[in-house]
């Protein structure tokens, strides 16, 4: 391999970005093109390196395999910086705030507005996710599923009482005008941050940090955040 | 003394009339040989006698009891048919021994099940079984297979299998024992031992109907010969009448084919 990760990426001319479908960070428009807050930023970052961004959907369970096996170059997909993530990847600074929120059917939402009130519920959480960690920390009963979308479906199908997912995702996927109109989100169980993951020892994490600083200073990140209505969650760089 | 009377048996498969009115009768202790070319209906006739096929018309009378009357056949119960079958025994061309049972078990299975239904005719089960086994052993000795009684069919030669099949039919003491080409699935060398057993039975005055292609044997052992052709009895008579002075052209032509000249 090339000396550093950035040389490796430049040599092949593409930055392969590992993603899953996650509104509003990464998703496809009706023409089939990738867009979203993360997707747009990744395109810009790749451009700054002089390479092309290539988006690759992955099985979220396999993200570390994908990264270490060099099938992708980074995981940039609203990834919460959990202790496990920090331990196994070289991560950028946090760029976005997030919270783990409780999803329940809208018709019973009133009963579940506090951490205390949701204690007895049966939760669906994504296996290995920040949501799972929070649930365990609170001593909740959980069922671990493959991804957050499945966790939502578990609540919709009644196979779980509630789910814990990212607040950003919740904002985009549940409630009026979404596919899950009968669900809503209530309590936030923690606050946490999103970051971008690279291979361990990669120099790209630092390069991305510098890129974030520059873009924050010229105000373009803020504008992008407004486009996707997540300006409230943005972290100052 | 007439043991069997067959009147006007007809059988149609689809729109092919396979039996076109068969009439014949048989006296107790007689041996009847049925010969005829392939497809003439010999097997179908035996199957009718054993109630494996239901004739479309005709009667079957055994010992003056009407076992079958086509006109009433639809009201005959399953269990009545079962009883009727026991007047006849049938030995198949391909033996049809039960492969999972030894020779002895093959012979004892049917009488054992039958007796179990009737509470062993008032005997104790073990008493009955002892009696049955000694009876089976006797028959095995008669057919010369005492030493192979604990062998499975696959361990027996074709000739031995056929002899077990004969024993299996004999133990139920049928009035009339039928054979459908009992040696045609056998090596020529093994044919002899089966024919010897049948010959022995005829000497003991067992009433038998034998469908066979062994012309020499048919002539030898039969008291009466029927030549079938195309679903009809073309000619019947004593062996010497049929084999030495066939009246019908068809009979003559059929017999000629066997010499290969």
């Amino acid at each position: 391999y090339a000396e550093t990760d950035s040389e490796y990426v430049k040599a092949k001319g593409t930055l392969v970005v590992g993603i899953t479908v996650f509104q509003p960070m990464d998703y496809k428009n009706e023409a089939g093109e990738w867009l979203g807050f993360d997707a747009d930023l990744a395109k810009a970052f790749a451009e700054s390196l002089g390479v092309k961004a290539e988006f690759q959907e992955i099985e979220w369970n396999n993200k570390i395999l994908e990264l270490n096996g060099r099938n992708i170059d980074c995981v940039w997909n609203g990834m919460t910086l959990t202790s496990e993530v920090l331990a196994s990847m070289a991560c950028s600074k946090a760029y976005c705030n997030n919270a783990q929120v409780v999803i329940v059917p809208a018709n019973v939402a009133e009963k579940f507005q506090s951490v205390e009130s949701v204690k007895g519920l049966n939760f669906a959480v994504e296996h290995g996710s920040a949501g799972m960690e929070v649930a365990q920390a609170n001593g909740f009963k959980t069922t671990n599923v493959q991804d957050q979308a499945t966790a939502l479906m578990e609540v919709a199908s009644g196979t779980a009482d509630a789910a814990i997912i990212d607040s950003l995702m919740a904002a985009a996927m549940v409630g009026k005008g979404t596919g899950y109109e009968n669900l809503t989100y209530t309590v936030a169980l923690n606050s946490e941050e999103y970051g971008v993951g690279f291979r361990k020892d990669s120099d790209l994490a630092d390069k991305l940090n510098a890129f974030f600083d520059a873009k924050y200073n010229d105000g373009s990140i803020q504008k992008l955040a407004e486009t996707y209505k997540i300006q409230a969650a943005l972290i100052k760089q | 003394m007439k043991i069997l009377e067959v009147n006007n048996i007809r059988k149609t498969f689809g729109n092919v009339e396979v039996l076109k009115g068969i009439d014949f009768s048989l006296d107790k202790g007689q041996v009847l040989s049925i010969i005829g070319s392939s497809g003439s209906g010999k097997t179908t006739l035996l199957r009718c006698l054993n109630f494996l096929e239901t004739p479309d018309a005709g009667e079957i009378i055994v010992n003056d009891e009407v076992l079958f009357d086509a006109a009433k056949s639809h009201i005959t119960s399953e269990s009545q048919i079962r009883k009727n079958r026991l007047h006849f025994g049938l030995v198949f061309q391909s033996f049809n021994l039960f492969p999972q049972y030894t020779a002895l078990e093959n012979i004892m299975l049917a009488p054992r099940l039958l007796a179990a239904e009737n509470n062993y005719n008032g005997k104790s089960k073990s008493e009955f079984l002892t009696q049955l086994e000694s009876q089976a052993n006797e028959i095995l000795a008669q057919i010369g297979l005492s030493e192979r009684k604990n062998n499975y069919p696959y361990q027996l030669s074709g000739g031995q299998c056929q002899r077990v099949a004969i024993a299996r039919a004999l133990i139920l003491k049928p009035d009339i024992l039928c054979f459908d080409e009992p040696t045609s699935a056998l090596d020529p060398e093994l044919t002899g031992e089966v024919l010897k057993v049948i010959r022995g039975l005829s000497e003991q005055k067992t009433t038998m109907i034998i469908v066979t292609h062994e012309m020499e044997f048919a002539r030898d052992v039969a008291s009466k010969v029927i030549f079938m052709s195309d679903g009809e009895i073309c000619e019947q008579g004593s062996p010497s009448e049929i084999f030495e002075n066939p009246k019908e052209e068809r009979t003559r032509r059929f017999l000629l084919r066997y010499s290969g000249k």
Partner: protein
Amino acid sequence: MELIIKQMPVVINALNAGFVQTLKLFSITLLGAFPLGLLIAFGSISKITPISVITRLFIWIIRGTPLMIQLLIVYYFPGLVLHNPIWGGGESGRFTAAAIAFVVNYACYFSEIYRGGILSVPVGQQEAGLVLGMTKRQIFFHVTLLQMIKRIVPPISNEIITLVKDTALARIIALQEIIWAGQAFMKGSHGISGAIWPLFFTAFYYLIFNGIVTLALTKLEDKMNYFR
């Protein structure tokens, strides 16, 4: 390498737990599919046309779609479409749903094998029984059944070997069988994260499981060879 040796006991423990689920699913599928398959086979050769037509259509649909989709439908359909989440969300509900999907799927495959087995016992065996004055019931139990079993052992064996591997599909509804347990170490579990070898290591479990099942089936086949 040293790391692997240190992690080994933890991993083995977790994989064993996953393997127990695999094993449970395997056994219950067999126990359920053997009798259900026979029932379906009788349905498919029934002389009552509606029964046989419906049964055959059902078999065709089940055999024509991936078990993966069947699992998803059995588990999520009641809640999502009927608004009646009969399974509950716990591991035991998932297991029940998985077991039902597997049993039905395998019963359909078995039923076709049974059907072939029943039809392949020569009709001469039945006729021999009839001629000896046996009833149809007696013929089925004393003559046909064992011969049928002998004939279906090899194809059923193939299906059983396939089942060993198919159990892995249950992870789609989050049943934590052995591959799930192996993958957990990639994401972080029991204080180990980013470890891939446990996942690949599950292959050995399958090989050994498979070997044992194959051996047992060969034994069974041998046992049936006392007759031909």
